[in-house]
């Protein structure tokens, strides 16, 4: 019997819940092989130790605990529910933000578009073309024009740019030209983009543009 066969024999005996002491083949090989003798001794100790393992008594009220818990409704909140709630919250927040931006920035109706020729230093009624709702030409609307409208509107309203530009309301600079790369211009361009998109949508909803 070699060492491999000997170990297989040990497992066979233990699998059948036999005793290691009652097998002469195991003892014979163990006398010839020091490694297997050590394994045999430690296996004996292991099984003796397993038999000595103590388990403290379980809670005698376990049955009451279980039945009491069974009577309470099961609280089951799945991870999926948290995910759905998170996505819904984000979507709601995004929708509210977009809506707030549109309500805050969009004028109530298409603003009059002023075309000013160079030989007229001041705008007059002759140089003004008023576009009524529904009959504007989408080709006449471009981003620069809307930015221009935004600046003019901003200049006419006290206090609006204060927060964005940091200029005090009483500084008297409300009518000063906006900085090319300032925050208000970035916002204006963003709003203009949104506004142009909205106008495109409205124009498409009204039908093909009139020529």
């Amino acid at each position, binding site marked *: 019997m070699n060492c491999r066969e000997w170990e297989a024999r040990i497992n066979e005996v233990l699998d059948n819940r036999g005793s290691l002491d009652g097998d002469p083949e195991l003892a014979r090989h163990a006398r010839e092989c020091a490694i297997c003798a050590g394994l045999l001794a430690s296996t004996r100790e*292991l099984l003796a130790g397993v038999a000595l393992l103590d388990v403290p008594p379980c809670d005698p009220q376990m049955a009451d605990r279980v039945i009491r818990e069974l009577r309470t409704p099961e609280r089951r909140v799945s991870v999926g529910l948290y995910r759905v709630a998170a996505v819904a919250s984000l979507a709601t927040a995004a929708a509210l933000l977009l809506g707030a931006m549109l309500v805050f920035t969009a004028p109530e109706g298409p603003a009059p578009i002023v075309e000013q020729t160079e030989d007229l230093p001041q705008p007059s009624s002759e140089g003004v073309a008023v576009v009524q709702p529904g009959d504007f030409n989408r080709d006449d609307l471009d981003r620069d024009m809307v930015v221009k409208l935004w600046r003019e509107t901003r200049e006419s309203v006290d206090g609006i740019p204060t927060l964005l530009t940091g200029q005090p309301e009483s500084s008297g600079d409300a009518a000063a030209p906006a900085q090319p790369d300032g925050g208000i211009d970035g916002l204006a361009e963003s709003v203009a983009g949104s506004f142009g998109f909205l106008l495109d949508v409205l124009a498409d909803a009204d039908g093909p543009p009139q020529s």
Partner: protein
Amino acid sequence: MSEDVRELIDRCLAGDTVAMAELVELYRGHVFGLCYRMLGHRQDAEDATQETFLRVFRALRTYDRDRDFRPWLLAIAGNRCRSHISSRYRRPRPRRLTGDGDEMVDGSPHPAGERELVEEVELALDQLREEYRQAFLLFHEQQLSYAEIGEALGCPVGTVKTWVHRARREMAEWIRRRGVVEEVER
């Protein structure tokens, strides 16, 4: 499965709480013993035992009457223990054998040599992979057959045998390396 257990299960299914309490009383030792060995912490083991019975009662209608009840029950207990163990990655693992009344306690009446052996066996159990430990405990401590363990763990008998053999070998090696054999024999 004995007729008594079958009848208890029938009564449990009918909502008889007295029968539920009897079923818990009948098996709480087995379940708690396994949980305690796998978790090494009395409070955790009691929690896992409670969760096991809750799951058993909630899933009792799906239980196949042709199977033995105890392996099914212990498989649920093993699953609960594995869940507890995985949740421990987020908190420190309790130390064993500190004798502070909460963790694995050695309040046993064993003499010093035996107490040391028990400690070493518990440490050796700690070194095992989860599936090895569970298979070893079910075979040697709970005295389940390989077929029952295979049914409980949902794996072939050959796999269970391999796990138990490896667990025995690793634990015997641990005991030999720790010099327990010589000290005990002295």
